[in-house]
């Protein structure tokens, strides 16, 4: 506990943007064949440093086969709400779930990121016993502590009961139990986020573990059996208040990105693929008159490709779907970044008019058919995937792996871990930085990125920007 609030907690998104830029990035590494333990890489992102864009420290886990995916901070700017009494927490611990093992690691990043070390390990049995959930995924810090979404219910294959969100104590990291009191029609889960002063949560749907753990199931996808609904909840009452179906052809509604400024009651959702035409899509949701609404506001077309350029899974289609796997909204809510993992493109949309996204910038790198190399000449396996934006909105970082078994189906040559950075023009436009290229240890793939001092998919705010 500090005497003053952590200097990385900011009352409003604008204050977060004005804070000093990031010095270190944290990227989780996974061993796709579980031959090595998964790890956390600490990367130096200070442009004037001798070790710029290099891994300066690695925290290797004691187990194998955890499958790291998403992770998050123990505390963020949401702690500045006097309602919750968490103002004196430190942004210090990274909560890293193993998506396959259901184990959770708590990594201490202080006193120095280059000496980060494991602080606590929560074994899967504790999570199963206390929550009846499995396969922990998204991590956010909020009013009742640390919230963690899961993809599986109970039982060996996670299909015994629906998945949901559970709560962890933000000081002791003790698993407290399920969050939901009334889940309504929700039976699938993926991502979640919220608007704290407006007191609502939004959750999305991917699939149940048998539909993803051993690879994508084409029959299930073509019969529209992946998630396609979005749920809106009363955050403090823990109650589902509205469920909207996007239409069964809109398969896999993944990342939820609400506007950071709590005065804005809208947000975005990315949908991986439309099974009628292979398009990827961006949806905008908003609250009006006490009800939530959502509409498709941008689509990204598939790109035709010759059969020999395609993996067996796609050969029948003769085209590469964009596969919108991740989206991220800049801190000022002006630009939405959209990762097209299939076509190998990072798109930047101007979303100042939230229901009329305008394509403002684009960078090609990797891709199933295009295989665009980095401007520095190096080959980039996979495509742009997990994306993270610096608080000031000037730098956009991303990695290239989607999920161990899915990588192998779409990119049969493998997806060696890579992390790149693009400079974003404040008025729109995106360009890859030639001097930023992270070499990860052999055999590892790279997934989500977190920035020290907070980033655009971590911090939520209780006061508007003025």
């Amino acid at each position, binding site marked *: 506990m500090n005497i*003053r609030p952590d*200097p990385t907690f900011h*009352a409003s998104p604008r204050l977060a943007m004005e804070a000093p830029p990031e010095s270190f990035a944290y990227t989780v590494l996974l061993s796709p064949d579980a031959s090595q333990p998964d790890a956390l890489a600490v990367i130096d992102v200070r442009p004037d440093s001798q070790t710029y864009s290099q891994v300066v420290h690695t925290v290797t886990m004691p187990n194998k086969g955890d499958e790291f995916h998403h992770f998050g901070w123990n505390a963020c700017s949401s702690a*500045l709400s006097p*309602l919750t009494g968490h103002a004196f927490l430190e942004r210090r611990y990274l909560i890293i779930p193993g998506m396959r093992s259901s184990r959770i690691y708590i990594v201490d990043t202080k006193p120095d990121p280059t000496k980060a070390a494991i602080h606590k390990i929560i074994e899967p049995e504790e999570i199963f016993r206390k929550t009846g959930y499995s396969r922990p995924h998204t991590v956010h810090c909020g009013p*009742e502590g640390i919230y963690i979404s899961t993809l599986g219910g109970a039982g060996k294959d996670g299909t015994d009961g629906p998945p949901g969100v559970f709560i962890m104590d933000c000081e002791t990291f003790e698993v407290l139990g399920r969050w939901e009191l009334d889940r309504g029609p929700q039976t699938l889960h993926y991502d979640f986020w919220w608007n704290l002063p407006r007191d609502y949560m939004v959750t999305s749907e991917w699939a149940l573990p048998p539909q993803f753990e051993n690879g994508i199931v084409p029959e299930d996808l073509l019969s529209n059996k992946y998630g396609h609904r979005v749920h809106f909840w009363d955050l*403090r009452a823990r109650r589902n208040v509205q469920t909207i179906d996007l239409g069964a052809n809109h398969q896999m509604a993944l990342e939820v990105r609400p506007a950071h400024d709590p005065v804005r009651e809208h947000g975005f959702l990315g949908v991986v693929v439309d099974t009628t035409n292979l398009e990827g899509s961006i949806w905008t949701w908003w609250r009006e008159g006490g009800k939530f609404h959502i509409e498709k506001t941008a689509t990204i077309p598939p790109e035709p490709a010759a059969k020999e350029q395609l993996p067996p899974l796609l050969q029948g289609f003769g085209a590469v779907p964009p596969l919108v796997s991740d989206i991220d909204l800049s801190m000022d809510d002006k630009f939405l970044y959209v990762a097209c993992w299939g076509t190998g493109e990072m798109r930047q949309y101007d979303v100042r008019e939230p229901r009329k996204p305008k394509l403002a910038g684009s960078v090609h790198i990797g891709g199933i058919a295009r295989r665009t190399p980095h401007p520095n000449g190096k080959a980039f396996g996979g495509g742009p995937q997990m994306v993270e934006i610096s608080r000031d909105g000037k730098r956009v970082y991303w990695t290239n792996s989607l999920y161990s078994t899915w990588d192998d189906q779409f990119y049969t040559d493998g997806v060696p871990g890579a992390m790149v950075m693009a400079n974003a023009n404040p008025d729109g436009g995106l360009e890859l930085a030639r001097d930023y290229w992270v070499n990860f240890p052999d055999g590892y793939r790279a997934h989500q990125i977190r920035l020290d001092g907070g980033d655009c998919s971590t911090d939520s705010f209780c*006061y508007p920007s003025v």
Partner: protein
Amino acid sequence: MAVIASGLYHGVNPGMGWPLAVSAGLMERSSRALVSALWPLATGHLLAMLLVLLPFALLIAIIEWQHTIQVSASLLVIVFGLYRMANRRHPRVLARISPAQLGLWSFAVALAHGAALMLVPIYLGLCRETELDRGHAAAGTLINANLGMAVLVAIIHAAAMISAGGCCAWLAYRYLGLKFISQSWFNLETTWAVSLILVGAIALVLSLI
């Protein structure tokens, strides 16, 4: 004096809610919203004070036990202070209160943090002074007088609390900006616990002499 001072002390503490009024003002972009958020905060605080003070107002009318009550009230405050010192955890139930229920939140937080309890020894001290003069008055009159005093103490305290909190909120909203929220926030957990122990101890000493 002590009643007003404790009110000001509670008011400037961000943990008692003034940043919520700033947030309300900014969310609605109107200073009227800020002011109207102060009302539920003040009312919640006032009700918490009354809830704790009124039972003591009735008890203290039993003249023979007056001394015992004063001593035990002081001890109670000291024990609660020690408890706050040892257990820094925040009651999780507070996090379940919706941001729309500011009055309920203010009421619960004043009880949970012992803000209301802090006022008890001060109040009992005031009762003692008045009762010395009317040692032989009828019990009914005494109860009325004590109740009146409890209400007065609670109102003065809550008024001082919300004036101080309102000033902080207004300064942050109008002049100092949102940075003031994190800059003005100190971890008062220890100070708060010590304050409780101190108030209890002073009251204990006074009731023993």
